[in-house]
């Protein structure tokens, strides 16, 4: 592990700064950050699964949805306590991750992406027709127990969860295991040639990605207090996750976080000025420009700026 003291100092400063934020910003801003936190969790989990290994999954809402629906059904329909429902939801999502992994044994590239998209569509149809008395059918469920009340508590919970996941994943990706996962994305044959089991490595990535997606999905639904198939198994939701990861910086942990915060704040800050659909044009335009100008994402933009500044200081 290539760990330096200043890495931890930066993490500590980031976490400390964020935890102090409720003293300085409005409740409305905290609400925006809550959504950014959850989007960051989903983007990180997608990046573990797809950004690292190169197996581009379009079925990520499938995993998030399993986590969200499992805990929603357990708590709302069976009155099971949240502390049991959430771990069960995470386990169920990992089973979903295993199912998603099966096609990765045989196919990759655009074929894999299409198969995973089919997973999302399949579960979208299933939750509407199979046991609508449990899933709420087409309209979904409302009145799911919430874990927090108010913007401040919601912020602390979502940020703690996001920070814990981000830090764990950041540490994990700095191990040899993390390096091997990234190597699969670069050249799977070479990794296999070096004597490593790519199947085991991919399985690990899929299960870890599913674990994070399930955890995020479960907490997300207990924040929203409602769930609807159209909100989760939706192409727009999928694209938001993908764009957050891509625009922030693929194969990193900080990148998806940056992307998630950038996208969420951009849309919410445009709301008072462009209340209608126009803000999505601005959003799309900025995302496109950013991606054209800097395909490696906002994180790379920052690190380039930092390098230039260092050069200027040293000269």
């Amino acid at each position, binding site marked *: 592990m290539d760990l330096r003291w200043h890495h931890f100092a930066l993490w500590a400063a980031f976490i400390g700064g964020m935890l102090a934020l409720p003293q300085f910003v409005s409740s*409305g801003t905290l609400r925006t950050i809550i959504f950014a936190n959850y989007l960051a969790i989903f983007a990180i989990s997608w990046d573990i699964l797809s950004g690292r290994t190169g197996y581009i999954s379009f079925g990520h809402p499938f995993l998030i949805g399993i986590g969200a629906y499992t805990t929603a059904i357990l708590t709302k329909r069976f009155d099971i306590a949240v502390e049991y429902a959430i771990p069960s939801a995470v386990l169920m999502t990992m089973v979903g991750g295993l199912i998603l992994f099966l096609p990765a044994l045989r196919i990759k590239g655009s074929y894999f992406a299409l198969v995973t998209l089919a997973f999302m569509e399949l579960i979208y149809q299933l939750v509407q027709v199979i046991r609508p008395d449990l899933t709420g*059918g*087409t309209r979904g469920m*409302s*009145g799911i127990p919430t874990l927090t009340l108010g913007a401040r508590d919601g912020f602390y919970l979502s940020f703690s969860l996001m920070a814990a996941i981000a830090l764990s994943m950041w540490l994990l990706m700095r191990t040899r295991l993390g390096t091997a996962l990234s190597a699969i994305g670069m050249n799977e044959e070479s990794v296999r040639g070096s004597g490593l089991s790519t199947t085991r490595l991919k399985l690990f990535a899929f299960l870890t990605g599913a674990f994070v997606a399930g955890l995020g999905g479960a907490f997300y639904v207990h924040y*929203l207090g409602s769930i609807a198939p159209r909100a989760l198994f939706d192409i727009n939701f999928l694209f938001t996750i993908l764009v957050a990861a891509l625009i922030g910086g693929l194969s990193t942990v900080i990148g998806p976080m940056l992307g998630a915060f950038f996208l969420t704040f951009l849309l919410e800050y445009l709301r008072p000025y462009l209340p209608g659909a126009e803000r999505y044009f601005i959003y799309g335009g900025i995302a496109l420009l950013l991606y054209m100008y800097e395909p490696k994402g906002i994180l790379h933009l920052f690190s380039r700026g930092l390098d230039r500044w260092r050069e200027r200081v040293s000269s």
Partner: protein
Amino acid sequence: MGHIANLREFSMNIKHVAITACAMSALFASTAFAEIKVGFIGSLSSDTGLSTLRGAEIAIDELNAKGGILGQQITLVTADTGEDVTEGIKAYEFLAETEEVDFIVSGSIDDVSLGWMPRMREFQIPTLDTWTSYIGIIDMLVEDFDSMRPYFMNIASDEALATLYIDFGKDVLKDQMGWNSVFILQEDTAFGGAINGLVTDALAPNAGIDVVDTLVYDVATVDFAPVFSRAVDSGADFIYLISSVNSQVVSSQYVKLQVPLGMTGVNVAALGQEFWEDTGGAGGGISTLSPVPSVGFRLDAASQAFLDTYQARYDSRPSFPHFNGYNAYFGVLQAMAAAEEAGGFNNTTWVDAMEKQDLILEIDGEMWIRYAFWGNDEVEPRTGRTYPHNVRFDITEPYDDGSPSMVVIQWYEDGSNAVVYPAKYATGEFVLPSWVEK
């Protein structure tokens, strides 16, 4: 000495300026904050969402012209949902926490309203839904009235709507037309699934009509020829269409293909006056159930005055407000009257005052439309259940206790339209298109 006196005078002047500035800023601050904020939540890009928004705008402008309420002017803040559930939650949070509105008027669709409902419970902001009719929301009031107290719905809930629609099935589809079997053509949406459930489980068995086949189609479908072929081959007597998205496509193809079966059902595009234009004049024969007031509905004087103002003010679509536009207009007027009576939007006093609102709109001395609400413990006699804070509908002839929960409207081949059911509100006859054999 003179120098000191000048300094003292200068100091006094500064004090006066400071005091005046403070007083002025306090005055401006109190003026700036002395406003009632109304939030609109709904889609800004749909005819239904715009109907609610414009209804609210007209009501607010009328109130402001009369001096506002509680001595304050009313401002309207909009929050677009884009008909997306998660955006709906964000929009409600924006209105509640960033804009800190006093009252929310909603033109949201079913699952979007369900999505933000936990926020309504959390913030306890008085909220009026004008479009969604989902009975599940009224059930939430039945189950937990205290946390849902500030919520009102001024469209008849879908259970009441279905009850009257079953009467249409018996009286018209079965008895008048002699139809015994139906082919259900349902779009693949949440709305489509929910209405299909009502038709399959309630309308068909109660009216004695067999469901011979059901076809669920994608909302992006552009060629309905194979779909209609299957309907004809099924041997059914008529088609029951459930369509809320791009309904003009399926409607116009039904007409252009001259499908030899009658078709009725729920057709959201046909609820708007633009339907004829949207179908390129190929909408004749299409009928749909509709909440009131609808196209073809005879309007009372107050509703007509609202429509005249609406048409004079807006030149973009929808050129005629949908039913929820009327609901928003009268609903906002009632909500503000309740606030005036309660001295604000206090959760207890405002709700009590809103529950007492009762606007009866008459034609020829007869009740035509009523904007009032069912009380918490009041039992509706026909269904034998309560509908707390739902608009006071009437589903029993002669409809003298409230508005009917729905009417059936039909578009004719000459581009005109009429209400065809129930008889009291009918302005025309339910007829088959000219190419369909009786």
